[in-house]
């Protein structure tokens, strides 16, 4: 594939009409969560967009993120984008393997030095020199450093790459770290989620492809367009929260009526993601719609933030012992102070000499 072609040319080469291109632009704008009024701008940008080289590296991960992406469907907007980008290395998806695959990667890195986009899924073990995850004898840590060096930008796909994710969970035996823990000198965009919503991954890629820049990010490095609002704020069950109607168990009347799942531990209020609007499985549903609270999988350390079934307002651990200890200590200290108080008062009482009128200094 010729890297010099623009996307417009590329599509027309494939026999896509101008009207088809506009269809594509409308769908892409929607995918990027841009307002429909932006479609002409998207069209203008896409027409001229150049084909970027993309290297995808998978580290300490479960392939769930890639599954999410590929599970989507046959040629669609996303796949068109993927057709257009040059996915020069993805060890799960590419046909080549072993030395040939590594060779392809090295070539892509050299040819596109300073220009390629690096996509990472999985966390990076750092403990003991990073030996807990290696590919072709090279540790993930070394590989990330090597491949990041020539990248224009890095997209950390999935909570593991973005924040450490599951491997980072206490006690983090491999010393797992996120991409941004290791690489500080490159623009990094996080697409957290376990896994992330596939349209969000492609939406971010589309944005980079369209405008050649990373979209606006929040304080956790997430694109605001998708992570700008909490699940709770966009949840169709929100009205039940406002009215104080909650499912108390997973099979009670409230659950059947689709009431708010807050009391069943839904982390929607503190989880920022697009699940409630983008939804999953081609817009079919999302966990809350299926009757289960959000577990907050796109938030840092979600695995260690208390029970999935404990309401947000409930303390994360059972403080029974501490509380008992405090009560005992309070009673003991109280008894001690009480003892001192009694002594002091008794001493005052013992020292009491009967007061007579001569003691009053009246004159």
């Amino acid at each position, binding site marked *: 594939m010729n890297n010099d072609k623009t996307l417009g040319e590329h599509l027309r080469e494939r026999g896509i009409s101008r*009207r088809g291109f506009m*269809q594509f632009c*409308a769908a892409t704008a*929607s995918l990027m969560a841009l307002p429909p009024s932006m479609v002409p701008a998207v069209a203008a940008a896409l027409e001229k967009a150049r084909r970027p080289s993309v290297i995808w590296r998978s580290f300490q991960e479960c392939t769930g993120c890639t599954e999410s992406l590929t599970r989507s469907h046959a040629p669609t907007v996303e796949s068109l984008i993927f057709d257009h980008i040059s996915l020069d290395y993805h060890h799960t998806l590419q046909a080549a393997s072993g030395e040939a695959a590594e060779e392809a990667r090295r070539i892509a890195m050299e040819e596109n030095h300073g220009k390629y986009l690096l996509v990472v899924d999985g966390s990076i073990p750092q403990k003991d020199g990073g030996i807990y995850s290696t590919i072709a004898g090279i540790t993930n840590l070394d590989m990330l450093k090597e491949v990041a060096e020539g990248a224009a930008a890095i997209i950390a796909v999935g909570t593991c790459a973005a924040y450490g994710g599951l491997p980072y969970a206490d006690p983090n035996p491999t010393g797992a770290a996120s991409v941004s823990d290791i690489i500080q000198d490159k623009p990094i965009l996080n697409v957290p989620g376990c896994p992330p919503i596939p349209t969000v991954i492609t939406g971010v890629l589309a944005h980079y492809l369209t405008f050649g820049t990373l979209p606006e990010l929040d304080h956790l490095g997430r694109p605001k367009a998708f992570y700008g609002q909490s699940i709770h704020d966009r949840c169709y069950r929100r009205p039940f929260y406002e009215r104080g109607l909650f499912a108390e168990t997973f099979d009670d009347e409230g659950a059947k*009526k689709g009431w708010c799942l807050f009391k069943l531990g839904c982390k929607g209020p503190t989880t920022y993601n697009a699940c409630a*609007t983008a939804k999953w499985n081609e817009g*079919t549903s999302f966990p809350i719609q299926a009757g289960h609270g959000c577990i907050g999988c796109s938030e840092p350390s979600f695995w260690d933030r208390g029970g999935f079934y404990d309401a947000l307002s409930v303390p994360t651990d059972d403080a029974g012992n501490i509380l008992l200890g405090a009560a005992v200590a309070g009673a003991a200290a109280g008894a001690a102070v009480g003892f001192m108080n009694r002594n002091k008062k008794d001493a005052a009482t013992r020292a009491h000499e009967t007061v007579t009128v001569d003691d009053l200094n009246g004159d």
Partner: protein
Amino acid sequence: MSHIQDIPITVLDRQGSQAQTGNVLPILNEIRYALALLVAKGTSTTIDLSAIPFAPGDREELERILGQGEVSALIDALGETRIRETDYRGVWLVSHHSPQGDNLATQIEVTRTPSLVSTPEQDIPDAVDALDDYLNSQLTQESA
């Protein structure tokens, strides 16, 4: 059943089961506002439904209320785009689908004619050329 969308979802009891989010009425109000704008200034508006949190059945409810108008169009370019005017004239429902039939995006356009229906400007000279080519080829055949 090769697609998840093929699984039929039917809302049996809107009141009793998963009640409305209340997002149907706000959207209808937004459409009403857009229509007024179209009348007053001739400005078109597009509303992207994928950005709206819908409860199960909300989408169907919205489409039911909007109803089916006189015009339907099918654009078969990069996948299908189905366009239909609703009962409320000037309000169009535009849904983009992948070649496999997956719904990619649905928009409500409040306009005289949805932009996608109009022929792209550059396609017309191309059409002249194409038609010329055809006529020329006929001429060549005749003269031959």
